[in-house]
C-alpha cells in the first residue's frame, strides 16, 4: 500500500469515515434526522471535489491504479462518481420533508445513503471482479433497506422484500458468471481477463460472460430482467425511488460499461448481440408497458426501463464515441428522472398525501401553471422532443450507433421512441387539456421548487449551453475504455 492508494481512494475514504461518524451521531441523537441529512451533503461535496481533481488535473491524465490493481481512479470513474454524488446529494435534500411527513424519518437514512454512495464509488472504480462484487453488494444492501424504509407501509415492505429476493438471485447469477470467467481465465483482474480471452472463446467463458451480463442487466433493470422495477419503484417512498432511478443506475451502467469495455474488448462479438437485444427489448418493453399505467410512479419506472435501452445502444456501439454519448445521456437522464420524481413529490392534496394517479393531475395547468410547465419540460425531454435537452442525448446515442454501422438498431430504436412519446404526451394532454379536478393543493416546499426548477432549466433548451463542458469531459472519460482490442 502506498500513499497514492490512499489518494486515489479518497472519495470513498471520506464518505465511509463520515458515514461511520454520522452513524454514531445518529445513535445518540435519533431525532436529528433532518440535520444529519444536511450535514452528510458536506462529505459528498468533498468527495466530488477529489473526483473532480482526478478528472481535470493533468497529473492524472492516465488515471491511476490503487490497491494492487483492484481499484482505478480515472476520468471515467470520476465522471460517473460526480453524477452519483450529485444524485445522492439531491436525494438528501428532498427526502427529509417527505419522510418526516410520513413519520418514517430516521437518523440512519442519510448514513445508508452515504454507504450506498461508497458502494457505488467502488463499483465505478472496480477493475477487478472482487471489487466489482463488493461494491455492488454494499450498494445493494443499503438499497434493500432503503426500499422498505417506510416500514408501516405494506407496499414499501413488499418493495423491500421483492427487491431483496430478486436482487439476491441476480447477485447469485452474477457470481456464477464471475466464477466461470475466473475459472477459465485464471484471474480476477479485468486487464488479465482481457488478455486471457484474446483467442477463441471457450464454452465455459462464454457462459460466464452471458451470466455476468444477465446479472448486470438485472441491476440496471434492463428488459428482460426488469420485472422488479415497477413494483419496487411504486412501493418505495418517492424520494428513495428518485434515488434508485438515478444514482444506482449510473453506477451499475458504468460498471457494465467498464466490464465490457475493459475485460471483454477482445470478444466484442460475444457480447455485442446480447447488448443489442437487451437494448431493443428494454426500449420496446418500456414504451409498451407504460401505456396502460395509471400510476405516475409506475409510468416513470417504465420510462427508466425505456431510457436504459437507449443508454445500452451507446454501449452496443462498442466504441469510445459510444461510451462518451452514453455518459452524456446518463447525465441528462439523471437530471430528467430526478426532476420527474421531484414534480411527483409536489403532487399533494390538501392533507399532504401524495397523489400519483394520472387522473388526479387533470387540468393541473389551470391552478398550478408553473408546476405543470416544469413537469411538461421533463416529459418532453424524456420523450426526446427536439427543443429540449433530452433530444441531444438521444441524438448522440444514435450518432454513435450509426458510426458503428448498427443501422437496424438505430432504426428500431427511433421507431420505438415514437411509441414511447405517446405516453409522455398523454401525461401532458391530461395536464393541459382535460377537465380540471383540483385535487392537487399548493405545495409549500421551497427546496423542491428550487431543485425542480434548476433541473428543469438544465433539461430545457438552456441545457445546450452546457454541451461544451459535458461533451469535453464525457469524451475524456470515454477515452479510458475500449483502449485495447475492439
Amino acid at each position, binding site marked *: *500500500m502506498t500513499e497514492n*492508494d490512499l489518494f486515489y*481512494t479518497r472519495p470513498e475514504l471520506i464518505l*465511509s469515515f463520515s458515514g*461511520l461518524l454520522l*452513524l454514531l451521531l445518529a445513535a445518540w441523537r435519533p431525532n436529528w434526522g433532518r440535520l444529519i441529512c444536511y450535514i452528510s451533503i458536506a462529505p459528498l461535496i468533498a468527495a466530488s471535489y477529489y473526483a473532480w481533481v482526478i478528472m481535470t488535473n493533468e497529473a492524472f491524465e492516465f488515471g491511476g491504479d*490503487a*490497491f*494492487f490493481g*483492484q*481499484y482505478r481512479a480515472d476520468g471515467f470513474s470520476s465522471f460517473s462518481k460526480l453524477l452519483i454524488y450529485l444524485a445522492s446529494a439531491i436525494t438528501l435534500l428532498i427526502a427529509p420533508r417527505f419522510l418526516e411527513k410520513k413519520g418514517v424519518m*430516521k437518523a*440512519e437514512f442519510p*448514513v*445508508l445513503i452515504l*454507504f450506498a454512495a*461508497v*458502494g457505488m464509488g*467502488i463499483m465505478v472504480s472496480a477493475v477487478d471482479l*472482487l*471489487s466489482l462484487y*463488493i*461494491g455492488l*453488494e*454494499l450498494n445493494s*444492501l*443499503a438499497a*434493500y*433497506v432503503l426500499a*422498505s*424504509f417506510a*416500514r408501516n407501509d405494506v407496499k414499501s415492505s413488499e418493495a*423491500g422484500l421483492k427487491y431483496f429476493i430478486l436482487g439476491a438471485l441476480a447477485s447469485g447469477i452474477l457470481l456464477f458468471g464471475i466464477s466461470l470467467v*475466473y*475459472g*477459465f*481465465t*485464471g*484471474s480476477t483482474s479485468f486487464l*488479465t481477463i482481457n488478455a*486471457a480471452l484474446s483467442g477463441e472463446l*471457450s464454452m*465455459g467463458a462464454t457462459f460466464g460472460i452471458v451470466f455476468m451480463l444477465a446479472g448486470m442487466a438485472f441491476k440496471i433493470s434492463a428488459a428482460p430482467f426488469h420485472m422488479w422495477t415497477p413494483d419496487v419503484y411504486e412501493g418505495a417512498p418517492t424520494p428513495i425511488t428518485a434515488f434508485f432511478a438515478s444514482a444506482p443506475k449510473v453506477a451499475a451502467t458504468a460498471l457494465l460499461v467498464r466490464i465490457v469495455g475493459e475485460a471483454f474488448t477482445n470478444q466484442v462479438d460475444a457480447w455485442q448481440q446480447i447488448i443489442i437485444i437487451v437494448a431493443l427489448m428494454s426500449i420496446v418493453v418500456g414504451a409498451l408497458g407504460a401505456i396502460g399505467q395509471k400510476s405516475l410512479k409506475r409510468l416513470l419506472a417504465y420510462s427508466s426501463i425505456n431510457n436504459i435501452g437507449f443508454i445500452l445502444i451507446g454501449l452496443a456501439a462498442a466504441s469510445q464515441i459510444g461510451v462518451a454519448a452514453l455518459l452524456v445521456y446518463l447525465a441528462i437522464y439523471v437530471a430528467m428522472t430526478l426532476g420527474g420524481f421531484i414534480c411527483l413529490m409536489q403532487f399533494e392534496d390538501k392533507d399532504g398525501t401524495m397523489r400519483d394517479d394520472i387522473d388526479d393531475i387533470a387540468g393541473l395547468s389551470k391552478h398550478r401553471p408553473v408546476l405543470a410547465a416544469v413537469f411538461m419540460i421533463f416529459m418532453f425531454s424524456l420523450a426526446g422532443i427536439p427543443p429540449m435537452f433530452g433530444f441531444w442525448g438521444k441524438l448522440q446515442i444514435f450518432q454513435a450507433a450509426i458510426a458503428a454501422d448498427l443501422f437496424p438498431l438505430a432504426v428500431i430504436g427511433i421507431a420505438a421512441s415514437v411509441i414511447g412519446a405517446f405516453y409522455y404526451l398523454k401525461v401532458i394532454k391530461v395536464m393541459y387539456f382535460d377537465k380540471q379536478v383540483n385535487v392537487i393543493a399548493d405545495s409549500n416546499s421551497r427546496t423542491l421548487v428550487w431543485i425542480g426548477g434548476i433541473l428543469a432549466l438544465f433539461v430545457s433548451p438552456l441545457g445546450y449551453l452546457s454541451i461544451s463542458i459535458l461533451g469535453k469531459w464525457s469524451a475524456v472519460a470515454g477515452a479510458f475504455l475500449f483502449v485495447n482490442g475492439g
Partner: protein
Amino acid sequence: MIASAALVIFSRNPVHSVLWLILAFFNAAGLMVLVGAEFIAMLLVIVYVGAVAVLFLFVVMMLDIDFAELRAGFMNNLPLGLLLAIILICELVLGLGALRAGSVQLGVDIANATPDTVPNIEAMGQLLYSKYLFLFEAAGLILVVSMVGAIVLTNRRRGGTRPQRISDQVKRRPEEATRNESPEVGKGVSL
C-alpha cells in the same frame, strides 16, 4: 456420510433428522480435511453446523409440525418427484460421461500461486490482510450496513412496556422520594 444422509430422510423424529444432518456436515468436513482443504473444512463446521443446523434445530423444535399429515399428501406429488429424480439421474450419467472425456482446460493464475509448503489458512490470511486489504475493509462496511439495516427495520419503540431507567432511579434524592404528612384524624393521606 452417506449413511447419515440417508438417516436424515428416514428417521421418524425430525429432531433426530437434524442431528443426523449435523453428523453429515461433520463427515463432509472430514473429507475436506483429507483432501487438504482445511479452511473449507472449518468453514463447513462453523457455518453449517454452528449456524445453519442450529437454526434448523430451533425451527424444528419451535414449529410443531405434524409429519404424518405431511406424508399423507406424498402420493400426490409422486409423479413430479419421479420426474425430478429421472432428470437428476440423467445429469449424473451425463456428468460421468463428461468425466471420461478428460478435464476442462482452465486458466492458470501464476501471479497468485502460493507455495505448497504454506498451509492454506495461513496463505489466505496473508493475502487477506495485504493484497485484499481494501476489499476486506469494504466487506466490513457491508456488514455494518447490514447490521444498521436490520436494526433500522426492526427496532421500534413499543408503547406499554415499562423499562427500567437506571439513571432516573439513581438521580432520585430522598427529598423528592419522601415527604412528611400529618393527616387529620379520619381522613388519611392522598398519594
